[in-house]
């Protein structure tokens, strides 16, 4: 067992800062908000994060200034604790253990040492916080105040001087008077009326309760101590649900916000006069007012907090990582700013600093007014690509209104050194007729202008080059289409350039095509076991002769471009394959049993440099290698791959994590050791079962069996490294019958067949009577392509036999063997031998 001491997964931020209402300190200098498991303290002036209050072990669900001491703050969390902090120094003062997950926290000024929390079962509970000197205190004293409270923290509010409590849920509002007892107000459910309550606020001076409703109305309730004579007035400006209402501390104004992303300020008692602060960027989710009323602050659905001075001027914007509905573009790293680039707000591309966990800027790609309305199709940035130097950026935006009409735009942006920002150079309207599946620049680090390739579902890929303007009056060079490529009408999938920019690989369904970037000539096609290619990338540096791909059939494949043959392949459900631009390493994320495993390997050999199972639960959707600022000098083999770069990935739940080597910190995880040598060659594990049993197969099946057995014995003595896959495949090629090769030659579509010169020798050989035990190592490499194809049709026996050892070693599905064909003696012997092999790493891999 080897411990990889200093590789671990660190949560790097990008958490939601708009999860709960932020809190402004009494002196208006700090803004506190819940961010994941931390409470972040921001400066309201500089927008910088001053402290992170760390201590909770689960999502922080509420932050509240302590009413009796304005320099302290309570925070509550789903881990069932309430913690008291000194937020100016960032010190944890006390931990109160409640024991139940807490959804929100409230306090009122006339209840000393009591906080009100909403726990599970949706009860509002009064918690008396004991006074004692201990750091960690169990809270014994819980008393339920209201049951059936909404889990939305905006649905509960304390009234004037803490005298009553208003809680809304569904169509019902409850007002609880602490002196007397509770009392209901029930809204009539008018037919078709959408007057569900969404939020509530109480006037600080008058007995007036403001409620926001689903239909965009705000109701001001008064006189609610009488059973019948309560009365309300309606303020209606919002067209969609009101998500937040708040009174200013003096009660002179009422603030409200909703999906319109307009902050509306109503004059209390003169509601026809209202002020607006429009264009706040995204839907308002929470509102907060500083205790002196000077600062307002709005949380937005795009993970942003805006600080507003006296309702007229936006003074600061604290922007977290914007998470739209999904990340449509790949993650990229801007070579200049080292910022992470991905789509953010609708129609924008965001540049997010990984080091500082801060959004640097948004590039408005679509350059259209965003209409805040639910259900409206908007332009979305779906693809983006940066060239190696970071001087060109390509973006693809699309809008799909219905099945028929798709609007597509390809935009190319040049980095302007003077303004230090991207400027639009070329807009190509409708570059393709259907969705663009991939866009990439050639990554050659030379100064010459690079090439952009886009591939689309319309069956074409296009290469775009910067061309001098045709007319002299043009502003400068612009991009134009250089080449349109297609391959047998198949839909292109991924495309990528080799590191030197000379080759372009485009995946067409199950065929990988390699084109010369200089002449746009189809150099070769690489086909492989069935399954559409999912991912494709060239090796870097010393591994640049390899092209790696993954396919739908859970295969990881590596072709040697020099021999145009499959170098090796292995069966892994690789969801994401990405090369490190600064080294030759590749990272593969495999999804297995509800969690994701990470493998790092060099393309030359199918041996992982590093592997970690269960990096995170759920699947990893996007990942990127980001270069380090300073290279690390790590000697340990397993963490060397992190010397130059860090690997960041986004999990399904959109949390940004990083695998980082940080030698100073204690190890958190232990790694299962990997046996070198056995490596990744398990390729026939998954073979197409749908192959027809041809008559040839049935005829020749019997006398082929002994050959197969002997072939297997030869097969399982591989050299330690080198090219085990070739050998293995070669041996099987011999062992399998020749007749299927002939039939396959006849059956296979012409376009997936290699050149006739390749096939000739194999065909001739197939006509010969094969001699058992003949050496295959001398076989010329060009036979691999056919052997590979053979693999698709390789006979049942070989398949079961080879797949068996793995199952056997795990002993998981041994019972199934009874149903399989009878094993020959040679096979049994082989099995026994395999059992002796150390397959512990495999077991570790398979365990959930």
């Amino acid at each position, binding site marked *: 067992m080897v411990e990889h001491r200093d590789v671990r997964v660190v949560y790097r931020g990008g958490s939601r800062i708009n999860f709960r209402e932020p809190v402004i300190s009494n002196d208006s200098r700090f803004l506190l908000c819940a961010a994941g498991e931390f409470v972040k303290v921001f400066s309201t002036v500089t927008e910088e994060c001053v402290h992170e209050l760390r201590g909770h072990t689960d999502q922080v669900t509420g932050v509240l200034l302590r009413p009796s001491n304005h320099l302290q703050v309570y925070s509550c969390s789903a881990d069932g604790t309430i913690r008291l902090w000194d937020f100016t120094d960032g010190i944890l003062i006390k931990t109160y253990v409640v024991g139940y997950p807490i959804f929100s926290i409230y306090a009122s000024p006339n209840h000393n040492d009591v906080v009100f929390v909403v726990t599970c079962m949706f009860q509002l509970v009064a918690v008396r916080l004991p006074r004692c000197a201990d750091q960690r205190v169990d809270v014994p004293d819980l008393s339920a105040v209201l049951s059936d409270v909404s889990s939305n923290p905006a649905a509960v509010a304390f009234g004037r001087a803490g005298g009553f409590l208003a809680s809304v849920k569904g169509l019902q509002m409850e007002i609880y008077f602490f002196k007397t007892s509770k009392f209901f107000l029930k809204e009539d459910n008018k037919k078709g009326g959408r007057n569900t309550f969404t939020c509530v606020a109480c006037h600080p001076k*008058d007995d007036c309760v403001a409620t926001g409703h689903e239909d965009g109305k705000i109701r001001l309730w008064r006189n609610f101590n009488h059973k019948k004579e309560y009365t309300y007035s309606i303020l209606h400006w919002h067209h969609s649900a009101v998500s937040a209402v708040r009174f200013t501390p003096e009660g002179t104004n009422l603030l409200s916000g909703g999906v319109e992303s307009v902050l509306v300020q109503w004059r209390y008692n003169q509601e026809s006069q209202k002020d607006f602060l429009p264009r706040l960027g995204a839907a308002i989710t929470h509102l907060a007012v500083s205790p002196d009323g000077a600062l307002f602050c709005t949380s937005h659905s795009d993970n942003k907090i805006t600080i507003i001075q006296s309702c007229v001027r936006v003074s600061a914007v604290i922007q977290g990582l914007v998470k739209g509905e999904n990340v449509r573009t790949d993650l990229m790293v801007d070579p200049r700013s080292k910022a992470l680039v991905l789509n953010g707000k609708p129609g924008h591309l965001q540049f997010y600093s990984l080091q500082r966990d801060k959004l640097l800027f948004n590039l408005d790609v679509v350059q259209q007014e965003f209409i805040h309305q639910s259900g409206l199709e908007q332009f979305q940035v779906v693809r983006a690509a940066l060239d190696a130097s970071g001087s060109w950026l390509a973006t693809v935006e699309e809008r799909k209104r219905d099945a028929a009409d798709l609007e597509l735009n390809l935009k190319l942006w040049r980095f302007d050194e003077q303004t230090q920002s991207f400027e639009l150079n070329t807009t190509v309207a409708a570059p393709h007729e259907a969705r663009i599946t991939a866009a990439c620049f050639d990554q050659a680090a030379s100064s010459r202008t690079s090439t952009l390739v886009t591939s689309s579902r319309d069956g074409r890929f296009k290469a775009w080059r910067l061309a001098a303007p045709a007319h002299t009056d043009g502003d400068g060079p612009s991009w134009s289409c250089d080449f349109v490529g297609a391959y047998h009408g198949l839909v292109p999938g991924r495309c990528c350039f080799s590191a030197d920019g000379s080759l372009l690989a485009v995946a067409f369904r199950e065929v990988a095509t390699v084109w010369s970037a200089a002449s746009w000539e189809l150099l070769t096609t690489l086909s492989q076991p069935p399954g559409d290619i999912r991912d494709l990338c060239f090796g870097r540096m010393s591994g640049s002769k390899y092209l790696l791909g993954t396919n739908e059939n859970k295969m990881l494949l590596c072709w040697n471009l020099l021999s145009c043959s499959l170098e090796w392949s292995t069966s892994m459900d690789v969801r994401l394959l990405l090369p490190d631009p600064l080294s030759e390493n590749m990272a593969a994320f495999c999804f297995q049993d509800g969690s994701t495993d990470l493998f790092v390997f060099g393309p030359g050999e199918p041996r992982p440099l590093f592997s970690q199972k269960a990096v995170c639960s759920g699947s990893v959707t996007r990942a990127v290698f980001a270069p380090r600022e300073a290279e690390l000098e790590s000697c340990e083999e397993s963490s060397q791959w992190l010397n130059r770069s860090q690997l960041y990935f986004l999990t399904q739940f959109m949390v940004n994590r990083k695998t980082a080597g940080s030698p100073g910190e204690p190890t958190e995880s232990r790694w299962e050791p990997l046996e070198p040598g056995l490596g990744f060659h398990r390729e026939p594990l998954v073979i197409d079962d749908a192959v027809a049993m041809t008559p040839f197969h049935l005829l020749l099946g019997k006398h082929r069996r002994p050959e197969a057995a002997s072939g297997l014995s030869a097969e399982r003595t591989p050299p330690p490294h080198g090219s085990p896959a070739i050998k293995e495949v070669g041996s099987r090629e011999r062992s399998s019958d020749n007749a299927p090769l002939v039939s396959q030659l006849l059956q296979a579509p012409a376009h997936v067949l290699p050149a006739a010169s390749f096939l000739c020798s194999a065909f001739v050989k197939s006509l010969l009577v094969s001699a058992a035990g003949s050496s295959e190592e001398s076989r010329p490499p060009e036979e691999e392509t056919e052997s590979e194809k053979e693999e698709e049709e390789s006979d049942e026996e070989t398949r079961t036999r080879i797949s068996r050892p793995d199952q056997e070693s795990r002993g998981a599905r041994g019972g199934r063997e009874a149903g399989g064909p009878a094993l020959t003696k040679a096979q049994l012997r082989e099995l026994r031998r395999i059992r002796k092999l150390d397959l512990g790493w495999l077991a570790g891999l398979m365990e959930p």
Partner: protein
Amino acid sequence: MGEFKVHRVRFFDYMPSAIRAVAFCRRTERLAAARADGSVEIFNFADNYFQEKVIPGRDGRAVEALCWVGRRLFSAGLDGEITEYDLENLRPRYSLEAYGGPVWTISSNKQGTLLAAGCEDGTVKMFEILEDRIQFQRNLDRQKGRIVSLSWHPSGAQIAAGMMDMIRIFDTETGHASHRLLVERGAGASKTQEVVVWSVAFLSDSTIISGDSAGKVQIWDGFTGTLVRTHLVTKWDVLVLSVSPDESSVIAGTSEGTVTQFQFISSAVEPLPGSDRQWVRTRTFKNHSHDVRALVHTDTAVVSGGMDTQLVVRPLLDKVEKNTQESALRKITFPHKNLVSCAKKAGLLLFQFPDHLEVWRLGDSDGNGKPGDILPVKRKPEKLIQLNRKGDDQICCSALSPCGGWLAYSTVCGVRLYRLQLDNNNICINKVSKVPKELCSAQQLCFSSDSSRFFASSSQSSVVVVGLQQLEWRHLQTLRPKSGSREPVNLLAPSEDGRWLVTANTDCEIHVFDLQKLKLHCSLPVYASCPTAVSVHPTSGCLVSVHADRQILEFSLEQKEYTEWSRKLQQQGLHPLWLQRDTPVTAVTFDPRNPAHIILHDAFMFCVIDQTLPLPDAKTNLYNQLVLRSLPPAERSRNGHAFKICKSFQNLLSVALLEDRSLVVVERPLQDIAARLPAPVRQKKFAT
């Protein structure tokens, strides 16, 4: 329920007139509503909002303000006259020239001794209310600019007058103005336009509330004359204000069609002694598409009327029990009396408009079809005659004889009778001269079924019977009930066989006269609710009356007692849904081929009551026609009940059964009325 061939008539171009003013008398619970054509309608709020009386208007007399003084009703208009109405004979009693130009408003003090009129020339004129008339008493200090609105302080010592750009407070003792409250003009372009204080309200704590043309509702302190608070309600005009009787709530009607409520509430839930209450804008009701010109705040409801001709009663849910009949919103659009008379034998329709009459011949069709089919029209309906009235007074009632040979109408000045002769293409109409002197004016007119007699209700519930011969009419008898009621007759119904004549008056009395003996046969026991439709069964001689509370009574004229069926119905009670219907039944007819069937209708349904079938109890489905249709015939009879209700015709003005057993249904879709209204000031548009 039987099959009928239906004439679906939509060519009655009835257009109600806009409501200009309303006044509510709390003591009698009567609401008077004045329309733009000068007619005044009296609704009895205690009796299911039944429209008891209609006083026809007169051309050139627009009513601008109404005022109840006790049981007396006064109106004033831009013709400069103050009129008192004779509510027994449904006509103006007298008119008095105020000599101050057009009168914009009148208002009486709470004691009912003085009537103040605000005039165009800037004077507030005080009239003393005497027993039988009013008498000019004095002028208050004359101001520059017209007096648009007036409100008395409940003590009667002060009166507030809304004017152009200002409000004046007068001392009624001295007649001098004590305060001048300047009202700010609107912002922007309307800065140069003077602001009209359309309405003022003077509360007992000397708070003055004003509504003006700049869209503001302002609250003033009447002691100091200072502005307390301004509520900007609308961008257009606040036209009318009304204060609740307990002065805790004020409503304001605007030209947007909204009614805004202001309530006098304390800011704290548990008010400390001396804690201040303030006027807070609370609810907004939007029941009108056009200007709300007339508004009354009763104890439990907001009653509003305006340009869109509807009278809307919106109960305040905090004052009434929820989910009761009282808490339902009511819209009164159509008059509660028949404007259509049908010549059953001739197939003619007479439509009554305020200024003319129209006679139409119904179309014809020879097709036969399944129930629900639309038959092809062979002969189009045809307008035969348009008869314009003579004089300035509006037509108050009209009648067409069943044979189609006679036509009569009445105004407050007199009755006119015409002889109609319709040969194939020859239309001939002759006025019958020599009016019997007993016939001076009538509230109701009708012809006997054989068209040989003509009945006209006259003053003090009496009925004048006139015999008709060729181009001649002769007074036969004046029938008087014994009760001596002074109330007007609102229903006249001769029986089919010519034996009986039934009269009903607004005192809820029903009298039956024997036409052969020309004397009173009997009087029915007085039911608490006013009858809205009466009719005598052609064969059995039973009298069926339907009342404003939707009760149905059947009275045998032979036995002079309620019939067995009527007693059973009273015992079992009517279905709650039937009692909750909000328009009165305005006609009862019988199907001569099916003696057990009673046909009646209100504005939104017509109903056939089969007396042979069991009565529905509270749990059965009242509107079960659709359910029945889906059942097999055997089960249909088992599930049926006496009330067979058809709702396929809406906004009904009249339903009549012709001789040939085809049904005439006169509809007036509300959309057609709305389409003829002027464009509203403001239509709600999204995001405005």
